């Protein structure tokens, strides 16, 4: 047992850090530190820099453009990226649909989609949740009917993150209405520019526009856009969600936020002294740091253990990552609220393009607190995570 990184791993971390230092556009970094939304251009520009370096789809198999890194290297890369901070690769393309395509797709699909995902030539979004299907995803009702050489798609998706930017969607559709729940679902991809696709923004409580409703009205999709086998979509969805673990604890994000809390708490005054000098505040912050350290170690245990439990059998500790990771992220935003106090109030009205740079960064703290309530809801709510632990780990 040795928790220290090897010399090679330390050198790798230095290489990654140096690359971020030299290549992340400073404005992108600043906006992320301040909790502002990035424009599509800013994100795509950075991802293409990353892809040019060969790190855009780092965890893919080498033949599709991956790096062949060890799991520890992936961990280091993710942590450093989150902590710098710089935008993580677009999960919907890189972590979700990409692996489904190279695992279950045919040669033509791999050739057509994978390079475009890597270079973000296509912006992908995820068509999973529906108004009536949240935690109970398998109850979804959007249907795809086969008509000649086309699928005809009707229905509605919701919580579709950044669909306003999207060129492509991967969509779970019911293709066999007579089959039971999980059985009659297929995994179909298509262009968001297709006739009959309507995107309606959902404004979240922080005032931002990250998520959308997406409506399908007789959308015609070529038959070859089915990935894998018909009615096997649920298996691919499970595979996809299982791949989502990397970075779900978002330890790097919380580390960066703690750094920021300390920076701000040494500037903002309360009771005639900097907030950081208040012992009660310091203890609260330290308690959060300790939880984060424990989570980081738990994550490292999962990383170091990857593959040792056999494929599809993750380390039982991995279920801890989502619950604790989200709780800690929420605590850090609460602590920022505590630091800023009455100056949390001013609201920076969003422009039409979703940007909000009219006001001082202090105006981002409350929205960031409001926005982070989502992290214990998405990706399988924390209550669903507890169900998973109870069943899969404790055998209840």
């Amino acid at each position: 047992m040795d928790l220290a990184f090897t010399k090679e791993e330390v050198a790798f971390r230095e290489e990654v850090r140096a690359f971020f230092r030299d290549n992340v556009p400073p404005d992108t970094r600043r906006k992320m530190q301040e909790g502002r939304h990035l424009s599509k251009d800013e994100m795509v520009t950075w991802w293409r820099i990353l892809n040019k370096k060969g790190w855009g789809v780092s965890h893919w198999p080498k033949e599709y453009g991956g790096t062949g890194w060890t799991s520890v290297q992936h961990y280091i890369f993710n942590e450093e990226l989150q902590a710098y901070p710089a935008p993580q690769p677009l999960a919907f393309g890189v972590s979700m649909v990409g692996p489904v395509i190279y695992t279950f797709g045919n040669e033509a699909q791999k050739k057509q989609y994978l390079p475009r995902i890597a270079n973000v030539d296509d912006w992908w979004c995820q068509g999973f949740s529906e108004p009536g299907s949240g935690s109970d995803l398998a109850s979804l009702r959007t249907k795809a009917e086969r008509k000649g050489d086309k699928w005809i798609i009707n229905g509605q998706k919701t919580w579709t993150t950044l669909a306003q930017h999207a060129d492509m969607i991967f969509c779970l559709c019911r293709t066999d209405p007579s089959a039971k729940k999980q059985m009659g679902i297929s995994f179909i991809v298509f262009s968001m520019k297709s006739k009959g696709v309507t995107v309606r923004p959902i404004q979240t409580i922080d005032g931002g526009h990250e998520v959308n409703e997406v409506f399908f009205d007789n959308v015609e999709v070529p038959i070859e856009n089915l990935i894998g086998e018909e009615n096997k979509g649920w298996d691919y969805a499970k595979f996809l969600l299982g791949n989502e673990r990397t970075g779900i604890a978002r330890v790097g994000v919380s580390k960066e936020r703690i750094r920021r809390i300390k920076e701000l708490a040494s500037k903002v005054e309360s009771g005639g002294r900097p907030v950081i000098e208040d012992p009660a505040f310091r203890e609260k912050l330290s308690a959060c740091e300790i939880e984060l350290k424990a989570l980081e170690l738990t994550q490292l245990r999962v990383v170091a253990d990857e593959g040792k439990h056999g494929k599809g059998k993750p380390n039982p500790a991995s279920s801890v990552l989502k619950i604790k990771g989200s709780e800690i992220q929420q605590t850090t935003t609460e602590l920022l609220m505590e630091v800023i106090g009455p100056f949390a109030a001013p609201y920076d009205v969003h422009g039409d393009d979703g940007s909000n740079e009219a006001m001082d960064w202090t105006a981002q703290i409350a929205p960031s607190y409001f926005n982070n309530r989502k992290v214990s809801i998405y990706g399988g709510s924390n209550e669903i995570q507890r169900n998973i632990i109870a069943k899969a780990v404790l055998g209840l």
Partner: protein
Amino acid sequence: MDFDLSEEQRLLKESVDGLLTDAYDFEQRKKYMKEKGGWSKAVWSKLAEQGLLGLPFAEADGGFGAGGVETMIVMEALGKALVLEPYLATVVIGGGFLRHGGSAEQKAAHIPGIIDGSKTLAFAQLEKNSRYDLFDVTTTAKKKGDGWVIDGEKFVVLNGENADTLIVTARTKGERRDKNGIGVFLVPANAKGISKKGYPTQDGLYAADISFTGVEVGSDAAIGNPEDALALIERVVDEARVALCAEAVGAMDESLKETVEYIKTRKQFGVAIGSFQSLQHRASDMFVAAEQARSMSMFATMATDFEDAKERANAIAAAKVQIGKSLKFVGQQAIQLHGGIGMTMEAKIGHYFKRLTMIENTFGDTEYHLRRVADAGGLI
């Protein structure tokens, strides 16, 4: 980075787990509690036979030269079985002082007896008003000729009534809370001027309040520098804290296991109560708490080798905070999920709860260590 046990460590774990499975079920434990001194000499001999009492000592001193991971493995196993024998007092703390501060003569005089199981030790540190501050010492050691005269009172000395040798912290100069002027002394338990009042502790162990009145010891009694031993004390107590963290992880694992088994079998309203979601979620939260504790126990184990003493102390304090929070949650919820039966002496679960609770209050509770981390500027 590697969290796996080596082949030898795996074998060690198997052997200590095996020994305790055979020798230390709940019924056997009850018998041991009734033996003289409150623990089993036979079990202690078995621990010695398997080499467990000699693990951390250098090979030159007759030990196995094992490190922190090996102690973690043993302490987790002891925590699982709720072992009563004085491993912490004798091997971890007593042994720690001898290893880190002992002279060649002191090692030769005491280590063989620890390794073969014939001698046990106790650490007389706590005073009426010192609480968790290791430098808060009023017991005095005054120079007399070549030797020392010790006067003062020590409290809740684990294994204090039975130990053959006491390791006593005493002030050789300065005022009550000065960080300088503290020494550590090896004192034969039967020395003239020592009086002991022994009693059982809440968790079934034994401790004693011990008073020292003009107790004379030789010049060879001081471990390390008699005027400046605080760093040594802190180092050894840090290792004791790390050992307690591992013991707590073992006890939490078993508490969770017992609780899950119980709610799978206990039926109410015609079904196993483990089928109720509120109980499932509680058990899941216990699992999360135990895993976070395990991670920090490993972190603390690694931290014992940190070269920077401040960094080491901060990491171990942080671990004690996490373990304290986790053990409180796991312990309390284990009782809650057991319901009425969890309140009884006859069920094992309450005994885990009591041991865990006492671990929190040994060598600094959660609040104490949280303050230390906060004063050090945090951990990240």
